[in-house]
């Protein structure tokens, strides 16, 4: 298999509402990514775009509209889409564009402009559910998370306080992130006292909606060796989708994440992820999701994630730093872009360029993961140096 490296990364601030258009955000991230590895648009062979539902930007065929912003003018350009899992999938997709042998340099751009959708971006999700059996009930996005969180807590005897500690950790980690939207020093009590949105989900259990963009540059081995001393290699990729019929499966465990993780670990030759993964960026749009996904990523036993958190293992200085970036809870949730900044965070951490967020001990290998659709997508990437 052809080796593929990540050599550059860029991102914009994450904001509740950006003055920039989606095109402009995409351009800023793409330019920063290219600048960071001293490449220009001329060196780029192809472009992949990741962006979640068109209903946010309120543009049909959104990728076509965004194409010049992403640097794709007169280039092979395609958009991949797996709902919330898109951000990490776009990285997977860039990997196979290069690994196929058709291209040597692939620019991967993710963009989200959620604030365009009024009165609130959450309304865009109304059109996601099954129009026959789900939407007529007045279905809200939060119901799904509440159901899953409730089921997860009940099956394992986990408390709301156990889970709230994730939000505390990630928002604190984000204090060191220059692009963070909701970095804060908060306590478990603050989370518990915050307004109930859809019990057991409370306001501070939830990541914000955001505008933002991120970009990465993927290159073949020979290009990587020519342009950088610090390539970060793509060691494994995986993505998997479960059935749409939510009542046909048990929400307490994300089996689809496990399947996607196994694909990526197999490809990377990882037999014992708990020992071989040094840093993890699981998808954390809600605090319980980080725990849920750590279990799906096989980084601990089912129901054990809260214990690792309580023991400090997942702190930035712990044995297995989880979401050292601050995650979606702290940095923000610009759907596709927030998946990609998890991959970017691994890139910066593995190169030792994460500044104040740098985890100690020179990590060699990390996993990033995103999740999406109707509680059914897992997308995974393993990077290593």
């Amino acid at each position, binding site marked *: 298999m052809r080796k593929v490296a990540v050599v550059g990364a860029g991102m914009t601030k994450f904001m509740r509402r*950006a003055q*920039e258009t989606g095109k402009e955000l995409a351009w800023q991230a793409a330019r920063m990514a290219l600048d*960071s590895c001293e490449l220009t648009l001329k060196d780029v062979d192809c472009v992949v775009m990741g962006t979640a539902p068109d209903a946010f930007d309120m543009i049909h065929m959104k990728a076509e509209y965004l194409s010049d912003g992403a640097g794709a003018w007169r280039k092979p350009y395609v958009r991949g889409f797996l709902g919330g899992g898109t951000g990490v999938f776009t990285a997977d997709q860039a990997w196979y564009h290069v690994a196929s042998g058709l291209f040597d340099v692939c620019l991967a751009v993710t963009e989200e402009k959620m604030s365009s959708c009024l009165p*609130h971006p959450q309304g865009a999700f109304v059109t996601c559910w099954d129009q026959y059996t789900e939407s007529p009930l007045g279905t809200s996005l939060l119901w799904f998370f*509440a159901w899953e969180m409730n089921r997860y807590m*009940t099956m394992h005897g986990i408390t709301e306080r156990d889970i709230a500690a994730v939000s505390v950790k990630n928002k604190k980690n984000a204090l060191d992130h220059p692009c963070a939207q909701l970095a804060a020093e908060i306590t478990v009590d603050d989370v518990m006292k915050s307004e109930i949105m859809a019990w057991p989900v409370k306001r501070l259990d939830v990541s914000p909606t955001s505008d933002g963009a991120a970009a990465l540059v993927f290159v073949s081995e020979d290009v990587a060796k020519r342009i950088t001393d610090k390539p970060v290699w793509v060691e494994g990729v995986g993505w998997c989708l479960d059935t749409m*019929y939510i009542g046909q499966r048990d*929400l307490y465990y994300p089996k689809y994440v496990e399947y996607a993780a196994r694909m990526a670990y197999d490809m990377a030759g990882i037999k014992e992820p708990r020992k071989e993964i040094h840093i993890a960026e699981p998808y954390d749009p809600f605090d319980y999701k980080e725990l849920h996904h750590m279990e799906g990523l096989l980084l601990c036993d089912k129901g054990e994630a809260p214990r690792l958190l309580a023991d400090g293992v997942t702190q930035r200085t712990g044995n297995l730093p989880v979401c050292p970036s601050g995650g979606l809870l702290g940095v923000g949730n610009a759907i596709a872009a927030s998946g990609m900044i998890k991959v970017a965070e691994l890139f910066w951490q593995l190169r030792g360029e994460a*500044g104040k967020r740098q985890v100690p001990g020179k990590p060699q290998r990390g996993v990033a993961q995103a999740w999406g659709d109707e509680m059914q997508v897992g997308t995974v990437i393993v990077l290593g140096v």
Partner: protein
Amino acid sequence: MTEKIKVWPGTPLSDKDLAAKKVLLTEWHPNLKYAWDTGMGYGRYFAELKKGRIVGTKCNKCRRVLLPARVFCEWCFRTVDEWVYLKDTGIINTFSIAYTGSMAERLKEPVIPALVEIDGSGGVAIMHLISEVDPWKVKIGMKVKAVWKPEQKREGAITDIMYWKPI
């Protein structure tokens, strides 16, 4: 490289900036209308709901009941073998007490959306609402029964069941 970046791009706006018309805005109301074919599976599922019955289908290879009813089994990827009538009782698989609506607006009274495992289906759940109960007394595993609309008001939709109440 990353440490050297002093200014990260992006210009945040606040609601105040919008109210003060600091930026120009354009408005767009998409005029998109759809009429979706229900097809054979959902078509009969809704026709049966109108008659006050919950129908599923069964795949004899994996022996699962499929709900909502559909004409092929996604797991075995084959046509289903039979239609099966199910009871209008079940148990709560999971639930929420929702104080916000689908547009993120506050609700005065919470609604209780739940996944209800239909009796006789082997634990397959459908999405619906719970009512006639103090929300804070709802528990996972609670037994519930469907409360139907009066027959003349049913229209062949999932809302022909108004909600489920504990029994």
